[in-house]
């Protein structure tokens, strides 16, 4: 079971939604589409589902072109960001409907519906209710169940958790990988949140303005973004950047400021670069970094506290930076502080913004 996109593109009128894209998804893989809103995630999924016709290129399912095949005859299931259920039917009937259409014998149908419902933690009482009588979380569970019960070869999830409360999202997010492991299908999961992408693992395709900037194993892409676009897309809060010129032992930036080119940075050939480091590698407390550091001075703009960690928003020579601190770190805005970038985790991009080298490289492989 494979899904192959071969030079597929999509345009509405003059505006291009998807530039020619080729992609191969294998059986039993979890594939995350990561990108900001309007980067083409949904368009791509709609093409995969067959809801839209590609402007060019072919879509092959198990090797055969599915251009002519009607959506309802395709081996696909989909869940939307909005909670889409049939309001007129009970939750049970909602889940059952794909099976009824496949003429599945009654007892088997009942078995499968109940099994899926149990998997999605929908109890007997909820099965008898109408979807709109349930909470948002349960409605989406119903939609997910309806998609799963079909046991389709291709399951498309378009930001299924985006409209849920913070904690609900956390719970469901933890369940999805389990569900996925149990079905052998090709999963495609669109999200705007790098964090979510990392939790789901599997493969990832980073999208930016209708183009896939990089496709590969999620942790590898995270640790080796091929260019700054991918790095930007796959970093939340956004990656911190600094234009540097390496001359000898120093990295110069801004108006004649500089830091010592420590660690592997020392081995860079002299040239102009774009250095990037993730918020979790920019620290406000020296003791949080083990190895060598690049030290900068930045003004604190404000802090975002998630409880387990705090994101300190900084202003470094007009560039907006974000640093991460463990636990709760609340400092008044305005005051200037020292921040420490972990030298081992600095990405270096050349002038056309391609990745040059990074010490994270060795570890990811």
């Amino acid at each position, binding site marked *: 079971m494979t899904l192959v996109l071969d030079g597929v593109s999509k345009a509405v009128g003059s505006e291009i939604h998807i530039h020619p894209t080729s992609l191969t998804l294998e059986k039993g893989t979890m594939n995350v589409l990561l990108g900001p809103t309007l980067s083409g995630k949904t368009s791509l999924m709609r093409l995969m589902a067959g809801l839209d016709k590609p402007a060019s290129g072919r879509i092959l399912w198990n090797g055969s072109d599915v251009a002519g095949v009607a*959506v309802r005859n395709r081996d696909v299931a989909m869940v939307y960001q909005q909670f889409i259920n049939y309001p007129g039917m009970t939750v049970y009937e909602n889940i059952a409907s*794909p099976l009824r*259409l496949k003429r599945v014998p009654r007892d088997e149908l009942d078995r499968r519906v109940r099994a899926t419902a149990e998997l999605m933690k929908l109890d007997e009482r909820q099965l008898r209710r109408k979807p709109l009588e349930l909470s948002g979380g349960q409605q989406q569970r119903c939609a997910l169940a309806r998609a799963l019960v079909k046991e389709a070869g291709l399951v498309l999830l378009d930001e299924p958790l985006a409209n849920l409360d913070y904690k609900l999202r956390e719970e469901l997010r933890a369940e999805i990988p389990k569900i996925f492991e149990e079905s052998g299908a090709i999963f495609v999961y669109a999200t705007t949140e790098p964090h979510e992408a990392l939790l789901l693992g599997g493969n990832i395709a980073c999208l930016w303005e209708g183009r896939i900037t990089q496709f590969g194993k999620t942790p590898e892409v995270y640790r080796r973004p091929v260019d700054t676009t991918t790095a930007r897309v796959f970093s939340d809060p956004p990656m911190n950047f600094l234009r540097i010129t390496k001359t000898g032992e120093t990295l110069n930036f801004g108006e004649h400021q500089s830091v010592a080119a420590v660690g592997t940075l020392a081995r860079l050939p002299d040239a102009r670069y774009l250095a990037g480091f993730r918020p979790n590698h920019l620290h406000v407390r020296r003791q949080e970094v083990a190895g060598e550091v690049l030290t900068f001075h930045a003004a604190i703009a404000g802090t975002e506290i998630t409880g387990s960690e705090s994101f300190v928003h900084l202003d470094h020579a007009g560039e907006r930076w974000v640093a991460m601190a463990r636990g709760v770190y609340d400092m008044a805005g305005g005051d200037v502080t020292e921040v420490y970038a972990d030298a081992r985790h600095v990405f270096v991009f050349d002038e056309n913004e391609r990745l040059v080298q990074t010490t994270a490289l060795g570890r990811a492989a």
Partner: protein
Amino acid sequence: MTRYRWLVPTLYIVFLMLPIYWLLNMSFKTTNEILGGFSWFPHDFTAASYVKIFTDPTWYSGYINSITYVAINMVISVSAALPAAYAFSRYRFLGDKHLFFWLLTNRMAPPAVFALPFLELYSAMGLFDTNLAVALSHCLFNIPLAVWILEGFISGVPKEIDETAYIDGYSFPRFFVKIFMPLIGSGIGVTAFFCFMFSWVELLLAKTLTSVAAKPIAAVMTKTASSSGYELGLLAAAGALTIIPGAIVIYFVRNYIAKGFAMGRV
């Protein structure tokens, strides 16, 4: 000011009810009493007019005719408008906008203009003096209306539901009947209501296209009013009876009406 607010609608309703009351009042009077002069309520109360209407075929057949062609028109209009409205709401196709606008312009066609040509047209089709003729002619303004209202309701349903259904494996007809129509049930109700309303109240075309067999009640009345003397009581009774069907229908859709109007679709 807010304390006496309720007065406004109340007074208005009283104003609305007065002529209706007067009609009823008359309908229960004997012709003599009517001609006898002004009186607030019938002194020698009689249901004779009603009895006549229910016994005299020229009268009750009038009702049957009206109800028949209104019903036919409702069915035709709604069932033709449903798929069209869906198409206008969901699909982009050659000339869709112009077509939609053209449809609406027909709501602006004065029946007076069409009376005569209709007579010729339907005579030519051999439909003259049939309920079907009236029903079809009323499509002129009811179908555009129906399409308009339904389009509004349909656009209120997210198209993701359609797609989900296709993905689940529904064929279009099955999806449309099993999933979609229930979803816009209230819309269909409102539409049917307005079709009823405009078909029921229209007289000019109904009168022009019929002579004997399919004569609508409204026409029967005008005949009474003009030719066969001045039987006010009878006229009033007949009139009173024409209010009832409307009253019944409005009662059923009362909760959807506001919604129907809300989309400015009337």
